[in-house]
């Protein structure tokens, strides 16, 4: 070798080889081959020149991703491909540069800048004219005053007129251009109206959406069914059934949420001796004492006269530790001989051994704020017919969606829609129902209906249905007054929803709210909608597979030209999306319902169908809480049905490509529409899959993050202010004003303020890094412990503060979010796939050239 090589070059070869072997971990044959390849390249290219060097440099060059991976035999090919790619593409720009480009040319943005102010001006002018008329509607006084009654009559009158006109509009057949023009006009009206403030605009949007959707459904029923072909007919009817279901839920949903009541609490009498007595019941079955303890201690701190409140721990688990704990803290402890009828039975038994006028019920993991009773009880004294007042279930730990998708407190969670809007809407119709916890019921009312309902697995909704039938009213107070643990895993979440779904369908069969005595029409509709909601499983599965009927089986499920279908279905989707975003935007972001529903669809489809057929089957299953997902994993068993659906949809894509290539030309629009539908399904299924990748949970005690001022006193007598960042039952995290103030193992006194009072707690530093420190509380006497809960979990303002900082709904952004989520799902699926699948795919993937970032 030394014969025909310069000694310098020889040394370079050796250096390159050693670098590959030692630094990058290449095997000897690979290193030899690559060194040779490098040498060949070197012969033809001036690799030592400055420009090549900068291109190859590992910081900003275009080959960074290749230089990071372990060298392989095929590397020359990779470098070659990447080189060609670099010749073709421009480097990716930094964020700032991209933003400035966007400023420069964007006809869309400019058009928007032109149109929006004008639309706003129109909206403002309309509003100015309507304002005097509007203001008469918009007082929301919940009592049955003359004004409200007039408003209601006016509403009914208006509704009647619109209904007649709408009937005309809905049934009028249009040609394609006419339908398109009609849709565009309505859409423009909607876009202008939605900028009007207040409820009137919501009303108009609802009417527009109803018009368009009813028209769509009418058209579907009258002119899209092929009665001649059995296959077409079967699939077509299935799809039409599912669409009818969605339409019904849409309409009932509008009805339910049109006018949220937003009830305010009523003050109690001056003299506390007139306040009623309350039994606070905490049913428990198998939850750990750590979960129950904060609830009981918080109950002890409720601001209610001590002689008028009794706290009972209803232990169906009959555990000695619980009995001792109850005795220690001085609360009642109730057990029974059997465990019949689970929670409802437990409560019914407790009713027989207690005497309070009212019964407050808390699930054992729902920690009440000290203001709970004062905020709720006023209504009972004001309205003697009131049987129930319900407050939201608020969760301080992330639910599985929030945790696995990393969305905790970044957008409204799954429950926000129900507790923020639906219950408040129900309340207007006097149909707010009992949710099992964080509620107060009147004993006399419960006794009048013969105790808590035991026939179904959702005793809560059934109990309130019976209360309503007996003529009692219900109330909903939207201010969170308690907070608890969310279910900790997707499977537990699904289990809980299966129970709810089964229970609601059981009620639907056994005590159908549409029939039977004592209910007003509005109440019937609200209850029916709540139950229908849980029947969403089968229709959702139909939507997820419907396009396959055409792509795979060539069944014309919608017997109409694709363009005409688009002219009908797009307005339907746009209007319902816009209207729902307008009504629900603060409580649920657009498109997320699809993800939530899809995750549940498969699992509730069967139990609800079974319960529809045989409502007496099925038993109560307890929702597991307070557990710990201690490692990251992919819940394969949960996601199996979705993998199947994904495979089906993928085969639909293949079939679509085949049909595009070899099918008749006149089918191409239909194929394309189906393909879009399949892709939409794939995105939503991707989102559902993403949820199944369980993120790891770090601590057993769920830490609640918060920003609260506090202070610490250190052993030497020094004291510093600090900010409380998170807290749990046994420990807290704080931020000190400077680093190095505390060391691990130090004992200190933590000062927390609640109200005008300051409490000192002994604590030990368990970890410290920079300005942050983690504290563990020392053992403390009962009174101190109650104080601690009062300073943290039971603070009256904590949960009401939480709702403020959520971003508003932006439908387009939300759609992009969901699409990204879909892709994320496939990425996670791939990450957790078995090696056999993953290795060849990632090897193939390594050849894909990557777009470099522009050097900053």
């Amino acid at each position: 070798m030394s014969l025909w090589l310069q000694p310098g070059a020889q040394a370079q070869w050796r250096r390159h080889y050693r670098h590959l072997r030692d630094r990058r971990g290449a095997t000897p044959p690979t290193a030899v081959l690559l060194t040779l390849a490098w040498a060949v390249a070197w012969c033809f290219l001036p690799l030592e020149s400055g420009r090549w060097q900068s291109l190859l440099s590992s910081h900003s060059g275009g080959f960074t991703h290749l230089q990071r991976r372990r060298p392989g035999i095929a590397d020359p090919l990779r470098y070659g491909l990447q080189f060609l790619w670099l010749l073709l593409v421009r480097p990716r720009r930094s964020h700032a540069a991209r933003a400035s480009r966007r400023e420069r040319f964007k006809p869309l943005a400019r058009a928007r800048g032109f149109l929006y102010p004008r639309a706003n001006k129109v909206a403002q002018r309309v509003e100015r004219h309507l304002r005097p008329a509007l203001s008469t509607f918009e007082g929301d006084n919940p009592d049955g005053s003359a004004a409200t009654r007039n408003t209601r009559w006016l509403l009914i009158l208006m509704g009647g007129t619109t209904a007649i006109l709408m009937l005309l509009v809905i049934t009028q057949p249009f040609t394609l251009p006419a339908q398109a023009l009609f849709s565009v006009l309505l859409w423009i009206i909607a876009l202008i109206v939605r900028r009007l403030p207040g409820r009137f605009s919501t009303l108009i949007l609802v009417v527009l959406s109803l018009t368009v959707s009813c028209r769509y459904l009418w058209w579907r029923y009258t002119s899209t069914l092929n009665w001649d072909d059995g296959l077409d007919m079967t699939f077509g009817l299935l799809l039409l059934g599912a669409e009818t279901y969605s339409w019904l839920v849409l309409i009932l949903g509008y009805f339910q949420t049109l006018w949220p009541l937003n009830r305010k609490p009523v003050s109690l009498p001056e003299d506390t001796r007139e306040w009623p007595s309350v039994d606070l019941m905490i049913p428990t079955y198998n939850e750990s004492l750590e979960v129950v303890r904060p609830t009981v201690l918080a109950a002890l701190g409720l601001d209610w006269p001590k002689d008028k409140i009794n706290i009972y721990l209803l232990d169906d688990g009959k555990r000695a530790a619980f009995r001792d704990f109850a005795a220690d803290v001085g609360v009642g402890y109730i057990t029974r001989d059997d465990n019949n009828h689970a929670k409802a039975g437990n409560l019914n038994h407790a009713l027989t051994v207690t005497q309070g006028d009212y019964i407050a019920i808390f699930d054992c993991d729902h920690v009440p704020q000290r203001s709970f009773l004062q905020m709720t009880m006023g209504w009972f004294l004001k309205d003697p017919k009131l049987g129930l007042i319900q407050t939201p279930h608020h969760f301080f730990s992330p639910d599985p969606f929030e945790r696995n998708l990393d969305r905790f407190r970044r957008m409204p969670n799954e429950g926000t829609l129900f507790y923020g809007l639906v219950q408040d809407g129900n309340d207007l119709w006097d149909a707010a129902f009992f949710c099992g916890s964080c509620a107060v019921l009147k004993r006399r009312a419960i006794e009048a209906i013969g105790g808590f309902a035991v026939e179904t697995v959702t005793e809560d909704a059934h109990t309130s249905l019976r209360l309503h039938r007996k003529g009692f009213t219900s109330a909903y107070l939207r201010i969170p007054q308690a907070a608890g643990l969310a279910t900790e895993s997707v499977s537990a979440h699904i289990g809980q929803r299966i129970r709810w779904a089964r229970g609601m369908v059981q009620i639907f069969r056994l005590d159908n709210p549409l029939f039977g005595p004592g209910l007003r029409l509005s109440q019937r509709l609200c209850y029916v909608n709540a139950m229908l909601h849980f029947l969403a499983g089968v229709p959702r599965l139909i939507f997820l597979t419907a396009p396959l009927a055409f792509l795979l089986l060539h069944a014309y499920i919608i017997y109409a030209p694709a363009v005409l279908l688009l002219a009908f279905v797009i307005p339907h989707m746009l209007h319902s999306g816009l209207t729902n975003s307008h009504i629900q935007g603060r409580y649920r972001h657009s498109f997320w319902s699809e993800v939530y529903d899809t995750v549940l669809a498969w699992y509730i489809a069967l139990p609800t169908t079974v319960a529809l057929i045989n409502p007496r089957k099925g038993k109560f299953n307890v929702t597991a809480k307070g557990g710990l997902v201690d490692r990251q994993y992919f819940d394969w068993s949960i996601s199996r049905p979705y993998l199947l659906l994904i495979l089906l949809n993928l085969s639909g894509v293949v079939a679509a490509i085949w049909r595009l290539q070899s099918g008749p030309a006149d089918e191409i629009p239909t194929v394309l529409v189906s393909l879009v539908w399949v892709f939409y399904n794939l995105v939503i299924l991707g989102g559902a899959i993403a949820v199944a990748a369980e993120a790891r949970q770090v601590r057993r005690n769920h830490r609640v993050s918060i920003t609260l001022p506090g202070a610490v006193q250190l052993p030497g007598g020094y004291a510093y202010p600090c900010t409380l960042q998170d807290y749990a039952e046994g420990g807290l995290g704080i931020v000190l004003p400077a680093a190095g103030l505390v060391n691990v193992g130090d004992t200190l006194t933590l000062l927390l303020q609640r109200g005008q009072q300051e409490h000192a707690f002994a604590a030990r530093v368990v970890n410290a890094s920079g300005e942050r420190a983690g504290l563990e509380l020392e053992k403390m006497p009962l009174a101190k412990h109650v104080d601690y809960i009062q300073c943290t979990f039971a603070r009256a303002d904590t949960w009401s503060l939480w709702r403020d900082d959520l971003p508003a709904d932006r439908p387009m952004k939300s759609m992009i979010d969901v699409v990204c989520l879909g892709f994320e799902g496939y990425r996670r699926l791939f990450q957790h796939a078995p090696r056999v699948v993953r290795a060849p795919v990632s090897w193939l993937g390594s050849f894909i050239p990557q777009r470099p970032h522009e050097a900053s």
Partner: protein
Amino acid sequence: MDAEKSFNSAVQNKLKKYDEDISSLLENSDLTEFDYRNLAQLDRLKAIGTRWPLLAELTLSQREPFA
């Protein structure tokens, strides 16, 4: 001047946070009319009166917070 103003408002906000949690709840929920009874505080005052004879004696000779 601006810096000074922001200093004021920053510290004021901090002071507000030290305030009663109930008042912040009522403010957030737009319930300025609501008559909340700080029973815990009243209970405490009663306990203080029985715990420290001097305090009770002095206070009773003036106004009556233990009432």
